[in-house]
């Protein structure tokens, strides 16, 4: 956890106590490659915010612990945080988010995470979950729109997805979307076996389907392997990576050559996209003496997800309300747009009592010479 150092001058009437927040992070588990920078981004944001006046003068006191992507451990940590009277929790993966969604509703603790599954946006289903970025389904819709446009219609799409509810989350919605918006696309999905050393089997099935586009809903390493296999087989296929593989890790792991030309759907603008909202990050990094080049997309994600939560807290306090879970939830639902300086999609995140979908717009990038080059800033379905 980060310990609250000196106290900032509190101008809040109620309290100048630090605000306890619980962070459930994957640092050493299966998704540690992205979980670690995500967590670092959050902690960096908190540090920066605390150093710059805090949340209405109050510091954020984050207790951050690794759960190694093991759900029982996440539940244990959550109970620990509840016991520490946190006002909100930042989670991470699909597993822990699902496992805790009911508990956070019972305990009335707003919960954000790196899991952008569609059902979480429905306050009826998950009243305390907030999805900061466009959902996987929205990303899938954007991807399909882009493919339809890029191909001029009539293309076949193969969806390669992690073999789990996380991977399958956008699959059915994608199919429905093609129907709904009358896109002229063929569509077939394939589960990616975990721990595979090649995806030639899937590619050959995609090939027989006639697919020119492969949408991947998985993390970076397996996606990179698909890119390598496409290159080795000289296949004419374009990968469209969603969120968790739509990042520089994908490019680095595949190698610039194999990654060249593939498309990355990424709601959070990487540092290289130089959005207005990157300004504070650059300031902070300069202070810390860190090279912005080393900062990945997941780090930025962490920063801005924490930012959204902090803004909600600030609003609650500024409205003169006690900072509790229900009040924070109400603030997030009613405060209007939260500006992210163009980092998340087109920039604004807004929740309502009817929907906890923060945004539907996402950036689209292409791997060019080992870099993420922005094709479109705020694509929406």
């Amino acid at each position, binding site marked *: 956890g980060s310990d609250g150092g000196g106290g900032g001058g509190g101008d809040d009437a109620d309290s100048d106590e630090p605000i306890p927040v619980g962070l459930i992070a994957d640092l*050493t588990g299966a998704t*540690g*490659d992205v979980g670690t920078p995500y967590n670092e981004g959050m902690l960096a944001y908190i540090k920066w915010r605390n150093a710059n006046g805090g949340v209405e003068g109050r510091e954020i006191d984050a207790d951050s612990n690794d759960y190694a992507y093991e759900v029982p451990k996440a539940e244990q940590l959550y109970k620990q945080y509840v016991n520490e009277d946190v006002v909100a929790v930042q989670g991470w993966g699909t597993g822990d988010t699902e496992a805790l969604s009911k508990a956070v509703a019972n305990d009335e603790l707003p919960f954000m995470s790196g899991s952008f599954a569609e059902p979480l946006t429905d306050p009826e289903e998950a009243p305390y979950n907030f999805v900061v970025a466009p959902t996987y389904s929205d990303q899938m819709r954007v991807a399909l729109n882009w493919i339809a446009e890029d191909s001029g219609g009539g293309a076949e799409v193969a969806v390669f997805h992690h073999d789990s509810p996380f991977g399958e989350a956008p699959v059915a919605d994608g199919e429905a979307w093609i129907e709904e918006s009358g896109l002229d696309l063929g569509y077939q999905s394939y589960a990616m*076996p*975990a721990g595979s050393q*090649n995806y*030639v089997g899937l590619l050959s099935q995609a090939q027989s389907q006639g697919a020119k586009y492969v949408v991947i809903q998985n993390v970076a390493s397996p996606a990179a392997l698909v890119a390598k296999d496409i290159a080795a*087989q000289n296949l004419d296929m374009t990968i469209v990576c969603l969120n968790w593989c739509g990042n520089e*890790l994908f490019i680095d792991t595949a190698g610039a050559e194999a990654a060249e030309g593939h498309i990355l759907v990424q709601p959070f603008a990487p540092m290289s996209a130089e959005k207005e909202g990157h300004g504070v990050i650059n300031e902070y990094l300069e202070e810390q003496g860190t090279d912005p080049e080393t900062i990945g997309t997941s780090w930025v994600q962490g920063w801005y997800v924490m930012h959204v939560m902090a803004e909600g807290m600030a609003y609650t306090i500024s409205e003169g309300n006690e900072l509790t879970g229900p009040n924070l939830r109400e603030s997030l639902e009613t405060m209007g747009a939260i500006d992210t300086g163009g980092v998340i999609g087109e920039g604004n995140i807004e929740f309502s009592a009817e929907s906890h979908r923060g945004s539907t717009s996402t950036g689209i990038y292409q791997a060019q010479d080992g870099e993420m080059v922005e094709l479109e800033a705020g694509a929406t379905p």
Partner: protein
Amino acid sequence: MSNFINQLAYGLADGSILALAALGFVLIYKATGVINFAQGEFLLVGAYMFFTAFVIFGLPLILAVLVGVVVATLIGVLVERLILRPMIGENPISIIMVTIGLSALLKALVQMFYGTRPQSQPAILPRGSVEVLGATVPLNRLVAILVAAVVLTAFTLFFRRSRHGIAMRAVADDQQAAMTMGISVRRIFAMAWALAAVSALIAGILLGDISAVDQNIASFGLLVFPVVILGGLDSVPGTIVGGLVIGLVQQFTAGYWDPGLATVVPYIVLVLILLVRPYGIFGETRIERV
């Protein structure tokens, strides 16, 4: 047809690497009766050792491999000396647990030094591909098959020809009796662990090159179980057959059926084979006579 050849080549390549990974496992089992749950982490450590020598220290390829071999040997011997030796003669289940602890430890050590981010490593196997009967077979897979074949043959010969083979089996059968024959149980154990570490290193280098140098390499270790059970826990030729069978079964499942099933099909095959042959294809039957 070309597609089939393609799948075959990939399946064989994965299978050969599996066989290499399983070889170390079988050596340890054969000599010490220990089921090594840390085999996957041995691959991981192997891949990172080589990465360190090759990329971080920038050594030439051959030298980097040699350094890797030395370090792997050292690690194998250390593991044996510090962790397994005190456990000699204990209940096999307790020893299994120790190797589970070891796997947690090794993985954590890699994380401490290298983090969880995948490391980029320049290609070491040739990148191009050759056309075989209309199929595009990448060279790196062919080389992987070749390397695995050479290493496996070398090991098989070593055990056939040298009396260490018999000594190893003797130790596995009855440690006390082996001691009374002047066979140094410690030395045999150390040798088994060192050789296992070396074969894991080679498998780890190959894996790192064809996929990526990252934590996922460790999960490859789990597949070793169906491989060795299929071939027979204590059979070196069995690892080769088991590795190839599992590699191909996975490949064809992914290529012609439901790719997601590729993760469970090996286990289903394993159960089926065990029902017919309770000691795997080449495994030694446990002798029970009264």
